[in-house]
Protein backbone atom coordinates (compact mmCIF):
# COMPACT_ATOMS: atom_id res chain seq x y z
CA UNK A 1 0.00 0.00 0.00
CA UNK A 2 1.36 3.42 -0.94
CA UNK A 3 1.89 5.58 2.15
CA UNK A 4 1.45 8.85 0.31
CA UNK A 5 -1.98 7.81 -0.84
CA UNK A 6 -2.99 7.20 2.75
CA UNK A 7 -1.79 10.55 3.99
CA UNK A 8 -3.50 12.49 1.22
CA UNK A 9 -6.77 10.63 1.66
CA UNK A 10 -7.60 11.66 5.23
CA UNK A 11 -5.53 8.99 6.98
CA UNK A 12 -3.59 9.67 10.18
CA UNK A 13 -0.48 8.10 11.63
CA UNK A 14 -0.87 6.58 15.07
CA UNK A 15 0.96 9.54 16.61
CA UNK A 16 -1.43 11.99 14.98
CA UNK A 17 -4.43 9.94 16.12
CA UNK A 18 -3.00 9.95 19.64
CA UNK A 19 -2.82 13.74 19.60
CA UNK A 20 -6.43 13.95 18.48
CA UNK A 21 -7.55 11.56 21.19
CA UNK A 22 -5.33 13.03 23.87
CA UNK A 23 -3.67 9.72 24.65
CA UNK A 24 -0.36 7.92 24.06
CA UNK A 25 0.59 6.47 20.72
CA UNK A 26 0.83 3.07 22.38
CA UNK A 27 -2.80 3.36 23.45
CA UNK A 28 -3.79 3.99 19.85
CA UNK A 29 -1.80 0.91 18.82
CA UNK A 30 -3.59 -1.08 21.52
CA UNK A 31 -6.98 0.19 20.30
CA UNK A 32 -6.11 -0.98 16.78
CA UNK A 33 -4.99 -4.39 17.98
CA UNK A 34 -8.14 -4.78 20.07
CA UNK A 35 -10.33 -4.00 17.07
CA UNK A 36 -11.69 -0.80 18.60
CA UNK A 37 -10.12 1.37 15.93
CA UNK A 38 -10.17 0.31 12.29
CA UNK A 39 -6.86 0.71 10.49
CA UNK A 40 -5.11 -0.14 7.28
CA UNK A 41 -1.58 -1.39 7.15
CA UNK A 42 1.23 -0.21 4.91
CA UNK A 43 3.15 -3.29 5.92
CA UNK A 44 5.03 -1.62 8.75
CA UNK A 45 2.80 1.21 9.88
CA UNK A 46 -0.84 1.53 10.83
CA UNK A 47 -2.91 4.24 9.17
CA UNK A 48 -6.24 5.27 10.61
CA UNK A 49 -8.96 7.33 8.99
CA UNK A 50 -9.53 10.70 10.63
CA UNK A 51 -13.30 10.02 10.54
CA UNK A 52 -12.79 6.83 12.54
CA UNK A 53 -10.65 8.61 15.12
CA UNK A 54 -13.32 11.27 15.47
CA UNK A 55 -15.97 8.59 15.63
CA UNK A 56 -14.11 6.85 18.45
CA UNK A 57 -13.66 10.14 20.23
CA UNK A 58 -17.39 10.80 20.27
CA UNK A 59 -18.48 7.18 20.70
CA UNK A 60 -21.23 6.78 23.23
CA UNK A 61 -22.35 10.38 22.77
CA UNK A 62 -25.54 9.19 21.12
CA UNK A 63 -27.46 5.97 20.62
CA UNK A 64 -26.94 4.20 17.29
CA UNK A 65 -29.77 4.67 14.85
CA UNK A 66 -32.07 1.72 14.41
CA UNK A 67 -31.22 1.34 10.72
CA UNK A 68 -27.46 1.42 11.41
CA UNK A 69 -27.74 -1.32 14.00
CA UNK A 70 -29.96 -3.36 11.69
CA UNK A 71 -27.33 -3.09 8.96
CA UNK A 72 -24.65 -4.18 11.42
CA UNK A 73 -26.66 -7.30 12.26
CA UNK A 74 -26.92 -8.23 8.56
CA UNK A 75 -23.22 -7.72 8.10
CA UNK A 76 -22.36 -9.83 11.11
CA UNK A 77 -24.31 -12.63 9.44
CA UNK A 78 -22.29 -12.07 6.26
CA UNK A 79 -19.13 -12.21 8.38
CA UNK A 80 -20.29 -15.62 9.59
CA UNK A 81 -20.47 -16.76 5.97
CA UNK A 82 -17.08 -15.24 5.26
CA UNK A 83 -15.29 -17.25 7.92
CA UNK A 84 -16.87 -20.48 6.66
CA UNK A 85 -16.09 -19.88 2.99
CA UNK A 86 -13.92 -16.84 2.34
CA UNK A 87 -13.25 -17.68 -1.31
CA UNK A 88 -16.95 -17.82 -2.15
CA UNK A 89 -17.81 -14.60 -0.33
CA UNK A 90 -14.89 -12.60 -1.71
CA UNK A 91 -15.51 -13.98 -5.20
CA UNK A 92 -19.13 -12.90 -5.05
CA UNK A 93 -18.05 -9.49 -3.81
CA UNK A 94 -15.69 -9.06 -6.76
CA UNK A 95 -18.36 -10.08 -9.26
CA UNK A 96 -20.90 -7.71 -7.73
CA UNK A 97 -18.39 -4.86 -7.84
CA UNK A 98 -17.83 -5.48 -11.54
CA UNK A 99 -21.57 -5.30 -12.20
CA UNK A 100 -22.17 -2.33 -9.94
CA UNK A 101 -19.51 -0.25 -11.70
CA UNK A 102 -21.65 -0.33 -14.83
CA UNK A 103 -24.74 0.70 -12.85
CA UNK A 104 -22.99 3.62 -11.14
CA UNK A 105 -21.03 5.16 -13.98
CA UNK A 106 -21.18 8.52 -12.23
CA UNK A 107 -21.37 9.68 -8.66
CA UNK A 108 -19.11 9.16 -5.73
CA UNK A 109 -20.54 5.66 -5.23
CA UNK A 110 -17.60 4.70 -7.44
CA UNK A 111 -15.28 5.82 -4.66
CA UNK A 112 -16.83 3.21 -2.38
CA UNK A 113 -16.57 0.53 -5.05
CA UNK A 114 -12.87 1.35 -5.53
CA UNK A 115 -12.29 1.13 -1.80
CA UNK A 116 -14.09 -2.20 -1.57
CA UNK A 117 -11.85 -3.46 -4.38
CA UNK A 118 -8.80 -2.57 -2.28
CA UNK A 119 -10.24 -4.12 0.88
CA UNK A 120 -11.23 -7.38 -0.83
CA UNK A 121 -7.74 -7.55 -2.36
CA UNK A 122 -6.32 -7.46 1.18
CA UNK A 123 -8.18 -10.63 2.06
CA UNK A 124 -10.80 -11.89 4.53
CA UNK A 125 -9.37 -10.23 7.66
CA UNK A 126 -9.62 -6.76 6.14
CA UNK A 127 -13.16 -7.45 4.94
CA UNK A 128 -14.11 -8.79 8.37
CA UNK A 129 -12.98 -5.57 10.04
CA UNK A 130 -15.28 -3.53 7.87
CA UNK A 131 -18.23 -5.88 8.27
CA UNK A 132 -18.24 -5.78 12.08
CA UNK A 133 -16.64 -2.43 12.99
CA UNK A 134 -18.88 0.31 14.35
CA UNK A 135 -16.82 3.23 13.05
CA UNK A 136 -18.47 5.88 10.84
CA UNK A 137 -16.33 4.91 7.86
CA UNK A 138 -17.16 1.23 8.19
CA UNK A 139 -20.85 2.16 8.33
CA UNK A 140 -20.45 4.14 5.08
CA UNK A 141 -18.72 1.21 3.41
CA UNK A 142 -21.42 -1.23 4.53
CA UNK A 143 -24.11 1.08 3.13
CA UNK A 144 -22.40 0.55 -0.22
CA UNK A 145 -21.84 -3.14 0.26
CA UNK A 146 -20.85 -5.47 -2.58
CA UNK A 147 -22.17 -8.53 -0.74
CA UNK A 148 -25.84 -8.93 -1.68
CA UNK A 149 -26.38 -12.59 -2.45
CA UNK A 150 -24.06 -13.91 0.27
CA UNK A 151 -27.03 -14.58 2.55
CA UNK A 152 -29.90 -16.60 1.17
CA UNK A 153 -33.24 -14.81 1.28
CA UNK A 154 -34.31 -17.11 4.10
CA UNK A 155 -31.20 -16.30 6.14
CA UNK A 156 -31.63 -12.62 5.49
CA UNK A 157 -35.25 -12.64 6.67
CA UNK A 158 -34.22 -14.59 9.77
CA UNK A 159 -31.69 -11.91 10.69
CA UNK A 160 -34.16 -9.07 10.09
CA UNK A 161 -36.80 -10.85 12.18
CA UNK A 162 -34.35 -11.47 15.00
CA UNK A 163 -33.26 -7.85 14.91
CA UNK A 164 -36.84 -6.64 15.07
CA UNK A 165 -37.48 -8.74 18.16
CA UNK A 166 -34.22 -7.57 19.73
CA UNK A 167 -35.05 -3.92 19.12
CA UNK A 168 -38.53 -4.32 20.55
CA UNK A 169 -37.08 -5.65 23.80
CA UNK A 170 -34.71 -2.74 24.38
CA UNK A 171 -35.45 -0.74 27.51
CA UNK A 172 -37.42 2.43 26.75
Amino acid at each position, binding site marked *: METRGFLTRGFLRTGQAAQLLGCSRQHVVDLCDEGKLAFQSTGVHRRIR*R*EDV*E*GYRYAGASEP*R*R*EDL*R*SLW*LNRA*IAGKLVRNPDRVLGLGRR*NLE*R*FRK*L*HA*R*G*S*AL*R*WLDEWDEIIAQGPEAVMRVLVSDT*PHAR*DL*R*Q*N*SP*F*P*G*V*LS*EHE*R*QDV*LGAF*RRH*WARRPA
Partner: protein
Amino acid sequence: MNRDQLERIVRAACRITGEPELLVIGSQAILGSFSEEELPAEAIRSIEADLAAFDDPDDLKADQIDRGIGEDSQFHATFGVYGQGVSVSTAVLPAGWRDRLVRLDTDSGAGLCLEKHDLVLSKLARGDTRDYEYASSLVRNRLVETEILANRLERLPVGALKREEISVWLRKK
Protein backbone atom coordinates in the same frame (compact mmCIF):
# COMPACT_ATOMS: atom_id res chain seq x y z
CA MET B 1 -27.64 6.97 -7.44
CA ASN B 2 -29.57 8.70 -10.24
CA ARG B 3 -33.20 9.78 -10.41
CA ASP B 4 -34.32 6.70 -12.35
CA GLN B 5 -32.84 4.49 -9.65
CA LEU B 6 -34.56 6.49 -6.91
CA GLU B 7 -37.89 6.22 -8.77
CA ARG B 8 -37.43 2.48 -9.02
CA ILE B 9 -36.90 2.30 -5.25
CA VAL B 10 -39.91 4.54 -4.51
CA ARG B 11 -42.14 2.53 -6.87
CA ALA B 12 -41.17 -0.76 -5.25
CA ALA B 13 -41.46 0.60 -1.71
CA CYS B 14 -44.95 2.02 -2.35
CA ARG B 15 -46.08 -1.34 -3.75
CA ILE B 16 -44.62 -3.26 -0.80
CA THR B 17 -46.14 -1.04 1.89
CA GLY B 18 -49.36 -0.14 0.10
CA GLU B 19 -48.62 3.49 0.88
CA PRO B 20 -49.50 6.05 -1.81
CA GLU B 21 -46.76 8.35 -0.57
CA LEU B 22 -43.48 7.80 1.22
CA LEU B 23 -41.10 10.34 2.64
CA VAL B 24 -37.63 10.38 1.08
CA ILE B 25 -35.07 11.67 3.56
CA GLY B 26 -31.29 11.43 3.55
CA SER B 27 -28.84 12.30 0.79
CA GLN B 28 -30.90 10.97 -2.12
CA ALA B 29 -33.78 13.35 -1.39
CA ILE B 30 -31.82 15.95 -3.37
CA LEU B 31 -32.82 14.05 -6.53
CA GLY B 32 -36.33 15.38 -6.01
CA SER B 33 -35.02 18.89 -6.65
CA PHE B 34 -32.28 18.23 -9.21
CA SER B 35 -31.39 15.64 -11.82
CA GLU B 36 -28.09 13.84 -11.36
CA GLU B 37 -26.48 15.89 -14.14
CA GLU B 38 -26.98 19.06 -12.10
CA LEU B 39 -25.46 17.64 -8.91
CA PRO B 40 -21.86 17.35 -7.71
CA ALA B 41 -20.59 13.81 -7.23
CA GLU B 42 -20.55 14.21 -3.43
CA ALA B 43 -24.33 14.70 -3.44
CA ILE B 44 -25.17 11.39 -5.14
CA ARG B 45 -22.72 9.30 -3.22
CA SER B 46 -24.74 6.43 -1.87
CA ILE B 47 -26.50 3.42 -3.31
CA GLU B 48 -29.25 3.46 -0.70
CA ALA B 49 -32.27 5.70 -0.23
CA ASP B 50 -33.95 6.27 3.13
CA LEU B 51 -37.73 5.99 2.99
CA ALA B 52 -40.25 6.49 5.77
CA ALA B 53 -44.00 6.06 6.02
CA PHE B 54 -45.77 9.01 7.63
CA ASP B 55 -47.77 6.79 9.95
CA ASP B 56 -45.55 4.00 11.20
CA PRO B 57 -45.33 4.06 15.02
CA ASP B 58 -43.97 0.50 15.36
CA ASP B 59 -41.61 0.63 12.34
CA LEU B 60 -43.65 -2.12 10.66
CA LYS B 61 -43.62 -0.41 7.28
CA ALA B 62 -39.94 0.50 7.63
CA ASP B 63 -39.23 -3.19 8.16
CA GLN B 64 -41.43 -4.14 5.21
CA ILE B 65 -39.28 -1.93 2.99
CA ASP B 66 -36.13 -3.49 4.36
CA ARG B 67 -37.40 -7.03 3.95
CA GLY B 68 -38.50 -6.42 0.37
CA ILE B 69 -35.89 -4.15 -1.19
CA GLY B 70 -33.36 -3.49 1.58
CA GLU B 71 -29.68 -4.07 2.06
CA ASP B 72 -28.44 -7.38 0.63
CA SER B 73 -31.84 -8.16 -0.90
CA GLN B 74 -32.37 -9.59 -4.37
CA PHE B 75 -33.43 -6.08 -5.37
CA HIS B 76 -30.03 -4.80 -4.22
CA ALA B 77 -28.22 -7.59 -6.06
CA THR B 78 -30.13 -6.95 -9.28
CA PHE B 79 -30.21 -3.17 -9.44
CA GLY B 80 -27.17 -2.19 -7.40
CA VAL B 81 -29.28 0.16 -5.24
CA TYR B 82 -31.70 -0.44 -2.39
CA GLY B 83 -34.22 1.18 -0.09
CA GLN B 84 -33.76 1.49 3.64
CA GLY B 85 -36.82 1.77 5.82
CA VAL B 86 -36.44 4.43 8.50
CA SER B 87 -38.57 6.43 10.89
CA VAL B 88 -39.86 9.91 10.11
CA SER B 89 -38.17 10.98 13.34
CA THR B 90 -34.76 9.96 11.96
CA ALA B 91 -34.07 13.49 10.72
CA VAL B 92 -34.09 16.76 12.64
CA LEU B 93 -35.99 19.21 10.44
CA PRO B 94 -37.04 22.88 10.55
CA ALA B 95 -40.67 23.69 11.28
CA GLY B 96 -42.88 23.72 8.19
CA TRP B 97 -40.90 21.05 6.35
CA ARG B 98 -44.01 19.07 5.43
CA ASP B 99 -45.32 22.04 3.42
CA ARG B 100 -42.15 22.20 1.35
CA LEU B 101 -41.77 18.58 0.26
CA VAL B 102 -40.95 17.98 -3.39
CA ARG B 103 -43.01 15.34 -5.16
CA LEU B 104 -41.43 12.56 -7.22
CA ASP B 105 -44.24 10.65 -8.93
CA THR B 106 -44.06 7.05 -10.06
CA ASP B 107 -46.80 4.79 -11.41
CA SER B 108 -47.17 3.11 -8.00
CA GLY B 109 -47.03 6.08 -5.69
CA ALA B 110 -45.01 9.15 -4.91
CA GLY B 111 -41.81 9.86 -3.09
CA LEU B 112 -42.07 13.11 -1.15
CA CYS B 113 -38.51 14.39 -1.01
CA LEU B 114 -37.17 16.82 1.53
CA GLU B 115 -36.85 20.31 0.10
CA LYS B 116 -33.18 21.07 -0.56
CA HIS B 117 -32.68 23.63 2.23
CA ASP B 118 -34.48 21.44 4.76
CA LEU B 119 -32.27 18.55 3.65
CA VAL B 120 -29.07 20.57 4.13
CA LEU B 121 -30.20 21.74 7.59
CA SER B 122 -30.96 18.14 8.59
CA LYS B 123 -27.40 17.23 7.57
CA LEU B 124 -25.93 20.14 9.52
CA ALA B 125 -28.01 19.17 12.56
CA ARG B 126 -26.44 15.71 12.44
CA GLY B 127 -23.08 17.32 11.80
CA ASP B 128 -20.50 14.62 11.20
CA THR B 129 -17.69 15.04 8.65
CA ARG B 130 -19.68 13.48 5.81
CA ASP B 131 -22.69 15.68 6.50
CA TYR B 132 -20.62 18.84 6.30
CA GLU B 133 -19.00 17.63 3.07
CA TYR B 134 -22.44 17.05 1.61
CA ALA B 135 -23.73 20.46 2.67
CA SER B 136 -20.55 22.17 1.44
CA SER B 137 -20.86 20.60 -1.99
CA LEU B 138 -24.38 21.99 -2.44
CA VAL B 139 -23.45 25.45 -1.15
CA ARG B 140 -20.27 25.56 -3.23
CA ASN B 141 -22.22 24.71 -6.37
CA ARG B 142 -24.88 27.33 -5.52
CA LEU B 143 -27.63 24.76 -5.43
CA VAL B 144 -28.84 26.09 -2.07
CA GLU B 145 -28.77 29.62 -0.67
CA THR B 146 -27.02 30.38 2.60
CA GLU B 147 -29.47 33.21 3.33
CA ILE B 148 -32.41 30.80 3.25
CA LEU B 149 -30.46 28.33 5.37
CA ALA B 150 -29.66 31.03 7.93
CA ASN B 151 -33.28 32.19 8.10
CA ARG B 152 -34.63 28.67 8.44
CA LEU B 153 -32.02 27.76 11.06
CA GLU B 154 -34.11 29.64 13.61
CA ARG B 155 -36.83 27.04 13.21
CA LEU B 156 -34.54 24.02 13.52
CA PRO B 157 -35.14 22.21 16.83
CA VAL B 158 -31.54 21.99 18.04
CA GLY B 159 -29.78 23.26 21.15
CA ALA B 160 -28.08 26.63 21.35
CA LEU B 161 -24.56 25.22 20.90
CA LYS B 162 -25.48 23.30 17.77
CA ARG B 163 -27.35 26.32 16.40
CA GLU B 164 -24.29 28.50 16.94
CA GLU B 165 -22.02 25.89 15.33
CA ILE B 166 -24.21 25.83 12.22
CA SER B 167 -24.48 29.60 12.20
CA VAL B 168 -20.70 29.97 12.28
CA TRP B 169 -20.35 27.45 9.48
CA LEU B 170 -22.87 29.36 7.35
CA ARG B 171 -21.13 32.68 7.92
CA LYS B 172 -17.92 31.22 6.56
CA LYS B 173 -19.57 30.15 3.31
